[in-house]
Structures are given as structure tokens and as C-alpha cells.
């Protein structure tokens, strides 16, 4: 029966090629536009580390200008902390399982071969970073606590850099030259790209590639490697010290700080620990604002930092309305088309087809238009995503159609078409055959 209905549907589509093409095109464009913006939105709001996102907490301490307006939520507090607070916390005995202070920098890598030097992004951090974020290792392992304490010249490099410098061979134990220093490689990371890159989401880098070089923060400060991310200050640095020393001791924020916490009780204890730390610092004359500390797990953190932009939400809303227009368009065209074939329907009814049979036969036709619309919509969404990729910098991890989105696209199109067709199909199946046959 279905194959017969399908044959009828194809025949009907061929009889009104322009009208059918318009419907498929309209549905396709609506689906394409909506899927494009929604895919970006869906991937932006994805959980970058699903199995652990509720155990990882970003730390905020409100060390800002006492004359600024009062803090109402985590969004009002700087997303980064000072170097000195990072050092104090990382060296304290805390209820957290692991903590890591970190910042981003840039270096020039000088290959041993004749290849020209190139620049590479760097993350200066602690040995805890890798176990905390479950970073997969291809060779070797993270450095140890002792190497953090010794300011050791060691590095963990990314797979891409390892391929480039060592043709993908196990490079553990070898040296890599950054600027005019040598670092000993202790580990090579496998492909690792949390999206969004939750551990450092400000400075427009929320969808950036992960760094290719990780090294001890203690060593980075010795060089010094200057931060490449945002640095915000509210108080001028101490002018009696060298700029670097003054910068390290300043109230400028440029470090990200994360803690791994297993249970809600631990989280509460950790929050108390932070509050007590700030109280101690208040006694030393710092933190002149009212006591405000915030810990946010990964989903909360992405919300606090508005990783999904308002622009993105506006585009999703507008393209949804656009899809709605396309569906309305299709309903109108279907209604016209089906009422136009009243004669044929009347004939079929007179020959004994039941209302139900007419209904399902026409529904098959509508469904077919939906599937065709969905297919063209998927194609258009693919083009749309390529356009988005070229328009925004750093969106390359955000613009792929995964199987979920593909099925959703075709499903959505078929569903829209069937919803659009339900009323016209119902109308046409309810026509009384006798009157129509007479006028022929």
C-alpha cells in the first residue's frame, strides 16, 4: 500500500512541479537556516567534560575596588584571580581533592632542524591540571609535584606539536627549545579538545584550540612568560618595585583557578575555606570589599561567562521564526494544491476509497515533500555552517553536523511538513464526492 501511495505521491508532485519545488525549497531554506544557528547554539552550550563537569569548580575572589558598585552575583566579579592569591591557595591545605592555578602565554618554538621558528600557545600550570581535567596521554605522563616545587624545566606537549617536531614518535625525554630555553618533555597529550574550552573562557578564547605546550607555572614565572590572556587591574602597581615584581604582588587579575571537589559537603567546606582565606587577607589590609567568594561548576561557569552569546540566541530565535514563515508558506501552498485536486479525490472516493485511505494517501505525499525538504535543508545547513565558520574566528570546533543534528534536521523537516499538511489533507479527505463529480 505504501509503495502505491508513494507512486501516487511522485506522480502528483510531477503534475505540479513548480508548486512542489516551491514547497521543498521553502521547507529546505527554513530548516537550513534554523539548523545552522541551532547547531552552533547546541555545540556552544554543550558540556565539554560530561563525566566530571559537576566536580570541577572555578574560583572567584572579589578583590576589586572598594568604591565599585556592590557585588550581586558571580557575573559581577572578575573571572580571574591574582597571582598572589593563586599561590596562597595552591599552597594551602584545602578540602579540595586537587587545585590548579594557570595562565596562558605564548612562546617561540625553535625546531632543531632547519625549519623556521614558529609561535605556539602555552599553558603555565601545575601537575594537577592533567588528572583534574582527565587529559588523555599518548606517551609519558604529567610532571610531578616535586617538579612544580623545583621550578623544573619540563613540558607536556600536544600530539600536533609532537607530530610536527618528532614525526609522531615517542618524544618523552627529548628536549624542546622555547625562546632561548630548553624544556625536557615528560609527556605527550593525545587529541584533546574540550568545547567550549571551559578552563579559560574569557578573552574570546572560549572555542580556541587547546594549548600545545603545558609547563610548570613556577618555571614560567622565572623566565618570565607574560600572560597572553586578559589582564585587569584596578590599582596601580607598587612603583618602588620593578614592574615584574610589582605585577606579581599587585591586585591585577590574570590567573585562572580551578578546584576538583567530589561531594556537595566538600564544596561547602571548600567555600568556607575560601571565605576564611579572604578574612585572613582582610586582616592584612587587602580585600576591602564585602566578603564575596564564588565557586561555579563547569555548566555554571559557562553561564557566568556568557559563553553562549546573546547574538547567538537572537539568531536562533529569528531563524526559528523564519522556519515558521516557511511552514506557513507550505501550509498555504498545500492547501491550494490539495483543494485543486478535489476532482481527483472525489473520483477516488466515488470509486470506493474511504476517507481514511484518502487521508493517508495524501499524508504520504506531504511526508515525501517533508523528507525532500529535510534533505535539501541538511545540505543548506552544511553550507550555512561553512559560512558561519568563515565569518567567525575560532569556530572551527563548532561547525560540524553530527549524526544527532542530521537526524534532527530530517526529522524536523518531515514533522514540519506533516504538521503543515495535516489540515489541508484533512480538508481534502472530508470533501463530499457527489457535488464535485457533478460539476465535471
Amino acid at each position, binding site marked *: 500500500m505504501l509503495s502505491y501511495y508513494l507512486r501516487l505521491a511522485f506522480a502528483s508532485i510531477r503534475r505540479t512541479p513548480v*508548486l512542489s519545488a516551491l514547497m521543498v525549497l521553502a521547507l529546505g531554506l527554513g530548516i537550513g*537556516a534554523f539548523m545552522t544557528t541551532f547547531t552552533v547554539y547546541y555545540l556552544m552550550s554543550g558540556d565539554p567534560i560530561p563525566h566530571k563537569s559537576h566536580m570541577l569548580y572555578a574560583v572567584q575572589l572579589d578583590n576589586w575596588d572598594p568604591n565599585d558598585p556592590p557585588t550581586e552575583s558571580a557575573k559581577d566579579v572578575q573571572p580571574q584571580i591574582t597571582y598572589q592569591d593563586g599561590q596562597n591557595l595552591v599552597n594551602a591545605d584545602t578540602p579540595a581533592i586537587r587545585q590548579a592555578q594557570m595562565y596562558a602565554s605564548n612562546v617561540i618554538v625553535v625546531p632543531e632542524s632547519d625549519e623556521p621558528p614558529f609561535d605556539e600557545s602555552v599553558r603555565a600550570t601545575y601537575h594537577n591540571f592533567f588528572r583534574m581535567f582527565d587529559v588523555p596521554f599518548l606517551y609519558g605522563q604529567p610532571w610531578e609535584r616535586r617538579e612544580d616545587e623545583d621550578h623544573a624545566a619540563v613540558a607536556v606537549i600536544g600530539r600536533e606539536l609532537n607530530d610536527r617536531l618528532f614525526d609522531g614518535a615517542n618524544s618523552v625525554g627529548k628536549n624542546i627549545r622555547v625562546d632561548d630555553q630548553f624544556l625536557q618533555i615528560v609527556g605527550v597529550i593525545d587529541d584533546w579538545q574540550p568545547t567550549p574550552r571551559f578552563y579559560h573562557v574569557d578573552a574570546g578564547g572560549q572555542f580556541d584550540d587547546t594549548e600545545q605546550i603545558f609547563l610548570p607555572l613556577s618555571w614560567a614565572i622565572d623566565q618570565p612568560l607574560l600572560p597572553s590572556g586578559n589582564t585587569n587591574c584596578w590599582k596601580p602597581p607598587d612603583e618602588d618595585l*620593578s614592574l615584574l615584581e610589582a605585577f606579581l604582588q599587585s591586585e591585577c587579575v590574570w590567573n585562572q583557578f580551578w578546584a576538583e571537589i567530589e561531594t556537595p559537603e566538600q564544596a561547602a567546606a571548600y567555600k568556607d575555606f575560601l571565605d576564611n582565606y579572604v578574612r585572613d587577607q582582610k586582616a592584612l589590609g587587602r580585600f576591602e570589599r564585602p566578603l564575596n567568594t564564588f565557586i561555579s561548576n563547569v555548566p555554571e561557569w559557562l553561564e557566568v561567562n556568557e559563553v553562549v552569546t*546573546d547574538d547567538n540566541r*537572537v539568531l536562533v*530565535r529569528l531563524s526559528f521564526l523564519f522556519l515558521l514563515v516557511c511552514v506557513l508558506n507550505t501550509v498555504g501552498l498545500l492547501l*491550494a494544491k490539495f483543494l485543486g485536486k478535489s476532482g481527483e479525490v472525489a473520483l477516488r472516493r466515488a470509486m470506493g476509497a474511504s476517507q481514511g485511505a484518502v487521508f493517508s494517501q495524501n499524508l504520504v505525499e506531504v511526508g515525501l515533500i517533508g523528507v525532500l525538504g529535510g534533505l535539501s535543508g541538511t545540505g543548506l545547513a552544511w553550507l550555512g555552517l561553512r559560512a558561519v565558520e568563515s*565569518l*567567525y574566528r575560532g569556530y572551527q570546533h563548532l561547525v560540524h553536523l553530527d549524526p544527532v543534528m542530521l537526524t534532527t534536521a530530517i526529522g524536523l523537516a518531515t514533522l514540519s511538513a506533516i504538521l503543515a499538511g495535516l489540515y489541508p489533507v484533512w480538508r481534502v479527505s472530508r470533501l463530499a464526492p457527489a457535488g464535485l463529480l457533478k460539476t465535471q
Partner: protein
Amino acid sequence: MNEIGPIFRALTRNKLGVFLIALQIALTLAIVTNAAFIIRERAADIARPSGLDEENTAIFITTLFDSKVDQRQLFRDDLEALRSLPGVLAATPTQSTPASGGGWGEDIFNDPEKPSNEAINTGKFMVDEHGLETFGLELVAGRNFRADEIQVASLDEMPTSSVLIVSQALADELFPDGNALGQTIWDSPDGEDPMEIIGIYERMQNAWPHSSNVNNSVLVPNLPMFNGTMMYVVRTEPGQLASVMAAAEAYLSENRSRFVDVVRSFEEQKNRTYSRDIAMVKLLTAVITVLTAVTGLGIVGLAWFSVTQRRKQIGTRRALGATRYDIVRYFMLENGLITTFGLVIGLAGTVGLNWFLDTQYEVGRVPLWYLPLGMFALWILGQLAVLLPARRAANIPPAIATRSV
């Protein structure tokens, strides 16, 4: 015009069909008007002048990775070489550029007794005595830096500049009475290190085009030497940008102790900073275009179909003496009625959608004059879309009335 009655009565026989088109036109109006408004806001933002000679300016960033090289000397050599390239008007070292998204901010006080929250925030650019000319700035008052006023700023020594040149916007904010030239200002509330305003230029943006005080900027006489990063801005004679960029890159790449990070025209840099706004403009333009096309084609399709359906009636009307023009007018009037109905609903939809977008995402309020403009545009679209089917209807021969089918 006496046809309106019959047309209207004919429409009431197909209420749903009419309502569907009207609703489609209403939604189209709401989307197009709001999208056009957002596009225009963003485009206006992007079009604001940075103050620089945008078409003839290039940015170069290199990183020196060999600490044995004398960086001070390298600065001198670089600047001499860059300035002597054919087509170069001026060159300056700096640590940031306007509209680049990354730079230095500074809080400035016009009175050392003021609390820190009354500081005035400004973007800071370190330049030498060629900075003004390179950035294409005209002094409205005062003088330029002298060569002997330029001091090295590094991680070890951060000199306090005793002289600086400010933008008119910053001067006005610091000294609303208009007497900024020659005044003393401070960079910290402790009253140490007074700085004198020796010059005022008309306009230059800071590094953050989306900040509220975007036109606050200040030039300080420093040679920025922070680690190995060395940044130059070069201004060329008109039309010489590409050749200067190529020649400068070739020169900078000769030195094997440095890495050339960035060779970029100012316009490219600006486009990167505004990439989100540019993307929004392009995506919304695409939405408007395609949406208009879909709605227009929908009207064409429906009218075409209705013409086919009414062949016999049209033929009969023609046979009874209606002219071709009468037939065309019938369809145009019919479309005009439906569109007007849709646009009236759309008016409420547009305001509602704008209210939603503004309260949720702060896109701003659509000015009222957008509404008649959008309505007029869509009304014309409807008339144009129906023109082709209407002309086809007009071509139906009267003889068709005499045939049975």
C-alpha cells in the same frame, strides 16, 4: 474601486487561505524590521572612525627570542629601515593599536584627592615622536613629543611619563571647562608623579571598540620593551600599503633571532575585532534576503494557482467585457487587501518581537520610522509578486468561457 466589495466577499470564502498569507506577511514584517534594525546598529558601530588613516596603515608584531641580541639597538635599526622603505610616510613603535581588542587601560585623575572610583578610564598607547603622524592625528592644541622625551618602558623599569597627549574626548571628560592643555593629571590617587597634558588631538579610539569610553585615548612617550615582543605601526602613502607590507615583512624576516608574528593591514585588524558584528550583519542580511524571497515566491505560487483555478471565471469576466487591465487590477487589489491585513497584524508582531529581543538580549528599541518603511517595502513586494500571475490571468482568452471544462 467599486470592485473592493466583491473581492472582499470572495476572500471571506477562503478565510483560512487568506489568514495564512496574512500571517506569513506579518511574521515577515516582524523579522525583517527587527533584523534590519540590528544590521543598521552594527554597521554604524563598525563605520565609526578609529581616528587612524585606516586604508594606509599596517601593523607588524615580531618576537625576539634570543636574549643576547641588543633589543634597544634592534628597535633603532628596525625603525630606521622601516622609515626608509619607499612609500612609507611614518612609523612608530607601540604596544597596541586602536580597535584591536587588546591593549592597556589606565585610570587617570584630574585631582589626586579623588576616590578611585572617580578615575577616568582611558586607553594608553606608547609611541615615540613619530606616533602622531603615524596614527594620522591632527593636533588641535599644544605640541608633539620631542625625541629626548621618549623613555624605555620595560619589566625592569617603568618610567612615569611627565608629558602626554590626550584625545579631545578625554580632555573634555577630565576638564569640562575646556582648559585641558597644560593641566596636570595623575595616574594614581596618591598624588605622586604628576603628568602634564602637552597636546590634544581630535579623535582616536582606544583598543576596545565596544567599551563605553571608546574615544578616550592617550599617547605616552615610551618605547615599549616587554620581553621580546616588538610592535610597529607603519603609515604609507595612498596606494602603497601592499608593497610596503611585503617589503617590511621581507626586512623583518631577515633577522633569524626573531619570529614575525603579525603582518596585517589595519583594516584586517579592525575586521577581526569586529568579526562578531560583521558576522551578525552578514547572517541577518542573508536571513532578510532569503525570507523576502520565500514570502515573495509563496505569493507568486498561491496567486498562480488561484489563476489556474479561476480560469473559467476570468474567461467569463473577459467575455462579459472586462478588459485585461481590469483582470490585472483585480489580482493586485486582492493582494493589496491581504497584504494590508497582514501588515496590520505584523505591526503588533514587530513591536512585540522587538520588545522581547530588547528585554532579553538588549538589542535596543526599533525607531518608529522603521515601521512605515518596512510596511511599504513589503507592500511593494506583494504587488510585484502578484504581477506575473495577474498578467497571466489577463492573457486568458474570453473564449474559454464557452468551453465546458
